[in-house]
């Protein structure tokens, strides 16, 4: 081993040794050649304790599903593993400085002039503290959301009791309705806050179950048409089988897209939802005949905190988090979500839910078909 190291210049070794980032240099066969001081500090170990350790045979990494990425790194492709929770003592018994560490790992190859991998460098960034803070934040938000919803629940109940008692008084009824609306808005905001925090910290848990998308759509259409008496919600097409997804979250996505369609088409009288399915996936399209979205904005709408420009924002409220959360939900289902729009004419939001994980990338429904079938005529009619 010392012979291999001789190939590396002595002064460069000092640069690595004193770097604040934990650095580990390995041979292409998985054996560790050297570690720096920061590595020793992070893992509470020395190079000696790695005798007999082969990273390419590390059980924890294999079971964590990370080996394909690590192998890519060893084959010569720089790779980043955004986060991994590692328990040192599960691999080497004596390493019990801490029960676990969260790290972000960078793997990059050192190649010779012919492109052959001579060595692999592994750099660890210790993100344990960040992960603990994230967990605290998420716990705090869950508690805050629960705490906020408690007085909202009581307020809403009294509002409804008063609505009953004062049902004969038109002014009182009207004002109580307005109070109820505001309370519903408040509830949505609290939910949005909690959701975006979950999405950000990757904690969005999906509870999948089999259900018929058609039934969900019918319920939402009924509920939302009560809110906007001006818009008729038309559903076209049907799914022949049940989809395996998180019903509550898909419900959120649909409500988000349909209520956006209503919100951004104040002068229109309908919103059309088209559902199509083949053996591999379901496509849902939500079309509105409203103000449309500029080309520039189309590239930004699914990002966090995006809310058109200020003029539009003043007329439409909300935290602007809905589409971001929706896009994360669809992505977590291994689906796709996108939009097409013409300013002044209207927009169509599409999302795909794969029915079987194997077929996500390869087979797609011809969305042209959907557009030709339904929308060119609807746009004129």
């Amino acid at each position: 081993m010392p012979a291999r190291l001789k190939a590396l210049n002595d002064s460069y070794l000092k640069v690595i040794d004193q770097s604040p980032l934990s650095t580990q240099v390995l041979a292409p066969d998985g054996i560790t050649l050297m570690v720096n001081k920061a590595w020793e500090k992070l893992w509470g170990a020395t190079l000696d304790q790695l005798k007999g350790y082969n990273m390419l045979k590390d059980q924890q990494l294999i079971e964590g599903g990370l080996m394909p990425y690590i192998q890519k790194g060893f084959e010569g492709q720089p790779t980043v593993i955004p986060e991994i929770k590692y328990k040192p003592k599960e691999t080497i018994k004596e390493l019990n400085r801490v029960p676990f560490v969260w790290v972000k790992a960078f793997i990059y190859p050192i190649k010779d002039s012919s492109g052959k991998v001579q060595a692999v460098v592994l750099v660890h960034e210790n993100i344990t503290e960040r992960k603990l803070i994230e967990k605290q934040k998420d716990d705090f938000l869950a508690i805050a959301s629960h705490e906020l919803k408690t007085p909202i629940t009581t307020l809403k109940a009294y509002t409804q009791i008063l609505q009953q008692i004062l049902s004969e008084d038109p002014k009182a009824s009207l004002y109580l309705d307005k109070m109820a609306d505001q309370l519903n808005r408040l509830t949505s905001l609290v939910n949005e806050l909690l959701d975006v925090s979950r999405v950000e910290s990757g904690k969005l848990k999906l509870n999948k179950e089999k259900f018929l998308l058609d039934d969900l759509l019918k319920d939402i259409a009924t509920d939302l048409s009560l809110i906007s008496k001006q818009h008729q919600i038309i559903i076209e097409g049907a799914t022949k089988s049940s989809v395996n997804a998180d019903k509550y979250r898909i419900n959120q996505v649909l409500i988000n897209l349909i209520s956006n369609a209503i919100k951004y088409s104040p002068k229109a009288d309908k919103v059309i939802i088209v559902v199509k399915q083949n053996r591999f996936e379901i496509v849902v399209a939500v079309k509105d005949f409203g103000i449309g979205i500029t080309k520039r904005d189309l590239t930004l709408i699914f990002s966090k905190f995006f809310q058109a420009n200020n003029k539009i924002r003043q007329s439409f409220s909300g935290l602007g988090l809905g589409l971001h959360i929706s896009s994360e939900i669809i992505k977590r289902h291994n689906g796709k979500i996108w939009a097409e729009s013409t300013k002044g004419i209207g927009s169509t939001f599409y999302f795909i839910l794969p029915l079987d994980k194997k077929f996500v990338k390869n087979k797609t429904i011809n969305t042209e078909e959907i557009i030709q079938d339904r929308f060119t005529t609807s746009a004129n009619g």
Partner: protein
Amino acid sequence: MDKQSFSTNEPKTIMICDDDPGILEVLRIILEENSYKVIALNNGKGIQKRIEEHKPNLIFLDLWMPGIEGKEVTRILKKDPKTKDIPIIIVSALAETKNIAASIGANGFLAKPFEIQDLLETLQKHT
């Protein structure tokens, strides 16, 4: 033969269990307005004894309470042959806990904030 069990005029008893006094109070108002008898508890401790005392026809249970958790309470009550047939409706501020409600054997779920209409329909359905 117990005369009481044949009487249809006997008001039904609803047990409500929530750590927030504001919620307990408004629930009591709604239920008593609709001719239900109400037993209110602010936590799950000793619930079995209170059930034996009052024999509720249905229990509204909050999931998030200090001390003994709603989930634990549901499991215990559903295991005990004396209480397993009493319908338990989970009332919770976290809407996604609906799935948990089903998996622990609860008979229904009501998300906070709730519509009074939904509350009353749930009651009619299970009692």
